[in-house]
């Protein structure tokens, strides 16, 4: 094998990419409408909303932490925003900013507990998941908040306005996702901040000894993770015309699966935004594909579980080769 091919195969994104292409080929050969314009339109809509959370989670996991409260924040922020707006407490812009500020506070608290009290992020964010979800349910008595007033609001147009290219319906959220992917990818690979993120996850003690502000880096990423989750939740609520306090339940697991399948190391130190984008597509295309080829939707988790195990085995094998310098 030539050196270039060896390098390509050793990349953490290579395995997931092959799987993605293979999935598309198999699903399309069984059901050609898999690649129809209508199906692609439908696929993109929700994929990018979950994707926004996964992109931020990639940076956080690269820094050696993860956030189980993202699904709750996804549900809570739109509830807060629409409650403020519907009750006439604030205009839509202020309500939007207030809900993102609330997300930032949630992220800050997560970061504070993890970095100052040195409690594992698994426990901290599990607790926060319950607090935030409980708050959303308590505030709303468990009922969804109406969002149909969103029609015509400029903010709604900017966040989830749609237009057609031929028959392809594109939502603005796709551009938010692409923008976030480009910026986060740039930050992780090209900037000093990216170096600090990787070092904070790879060897926090060594990083600290070099003057890297590990706690501050992690804190910023917890805030980013919560804000992106809230942002995604608001986008989703406007698109579906419902701010349901229960929405986002178990999203945290799907998002973490997307990130890990893409090649980001669960223990931290190594992350890839391109891999996460591939991981996002794998999970969403799989969910869509198995329905289209007639497999019962309830079997979805079997496929997802199998993919996660397979990808973990592949990444572990690549890691061993990497450690051995091959």
């Amino acid at each position, binding site marked *: 094998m030539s050196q270039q091919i060896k390098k390509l195969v050793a990349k953490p994104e290579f395995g997931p990419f092959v799987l993605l292409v293979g999935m598309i080929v198999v699903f399309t050969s069984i059901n050609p409408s898999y690649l129809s314009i209508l199906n692609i339109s439908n696929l993109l809509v929700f994929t990018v909303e979950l994707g926004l959370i996964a992109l931020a989670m990639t940076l956080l996991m690269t820094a050696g932490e993860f956030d189980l409260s993202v699904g709750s924040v996804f549900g809570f922020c739109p509830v807060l925003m629409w409650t403020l707006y519907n009750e006439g407490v604030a205009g839509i812009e202020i309500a939007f900013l207030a809900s993102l500020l609330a997300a930032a506070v949630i992220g800050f608290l997560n970061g504070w507990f993890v970095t100052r009290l040195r409690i594992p992020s698994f426990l901290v964010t599990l607790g926060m998941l319950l607090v935030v979800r409980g708050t959303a349910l308590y505030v709303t008595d468990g009922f969804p908040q109406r969002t149909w007033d969103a029609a015509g609001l400029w903010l709604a147009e900017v966040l989830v306005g749609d237009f057609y290219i031929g028959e392809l319906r594109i939502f603005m959220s796709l551009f938010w996702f692409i923008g976030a992917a480009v910026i986060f990818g740039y930050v992780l690979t090209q*900037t000093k901040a990216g170096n600090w993120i*990787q070092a904070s996850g*790879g060897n926090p003690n*060594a990083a600290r*000894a070099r003057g890297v502000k590990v706690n501050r880096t992690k804190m910023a990423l917890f805030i980013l993770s919560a804000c992106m989750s809230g942002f995604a939740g608001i986008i989703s609520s406007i698109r579906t015309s419902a701010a349901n306090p229960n929405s986002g339940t178990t999203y945290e697991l799907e998002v973490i699966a997307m990130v890990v399948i893409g090649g980001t190391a669960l223990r931290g*130190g190594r992350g890839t935004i391109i891999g996460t984008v591939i991981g996002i597509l794998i999970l969403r295309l799989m969910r869509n594909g198995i329905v289209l080829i007639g497999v019962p939707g309830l079997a979805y988790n079997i496929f997802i579980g199998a993919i996660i195990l397979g990808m973990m085995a592949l990444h572990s094998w690549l890691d061993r080769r990497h450690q051995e310098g091959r």
Partner: protein
Amino acid sequence: MGELIRMQNISKFYGKVQALKDVTLTVNEQEIVGLLGDNGAGKSTLIKILSGAVPASGGEIYMRGRKVEIRNTTDAIRLGIETIYQDSALVTELSIARNLFLGREPIKGPKFLNRLDHRKMSEVARALLKQVGITKEIPTSTPIASLSGGERQAVAIARAMYFDSELIILDEPTNNLGVAETQGVLRFARNARDSGHSCIFIAHNIHHVFQVVDRIVVLRHGTVVADDIDPKTTTVEAVEHVITGM
């Protein structure tokens, strides 16, 4: 050569346990000092205080006669004190170039873009690896995980040299290394001294210490029991007696 560092009457308590009692240690310019002692003698604690990892309970630190405060590792690094721990204090997932500049990354272009100057990092890293004595051609984009133990130590020493650390503390740098790699690390330490740096060299293997240091200081039960042993005029057995007190 003049005095570079003086740790004066340093004491350290962990709860009620006293780990160091009135320890005074000096290191001169362009000198390699071997710090020896049995397990629990206080070597690590002393080094942690000097590198800012733990605060002293009492005592003062002087650098070229001027009193300095070392409250954390950043203070130590700013003063030019670099500690290379057993695990090399490197991030194994990052490349050689990224490790060399970790915490002091060069930026190019507009500041707000925060963009790493990859070319500069790579060029400097290549030159440094040569300077420290690595003759093998290793791409600077190679992750530390792919390097041997000796090469990792070399990268850590190269980093200290580049950032003009005046004092390089090598904490068990030859642990778990083969014979050739150990010789390499000893050579790296000598190269560092010859290019104007001072070193504190800590190792369990006294033979390694004898090969590289100019002076030996021995700690026992938290106090200095000898601070001017010349390795050229003594034997390993004699130093072992001082270490154990038997």
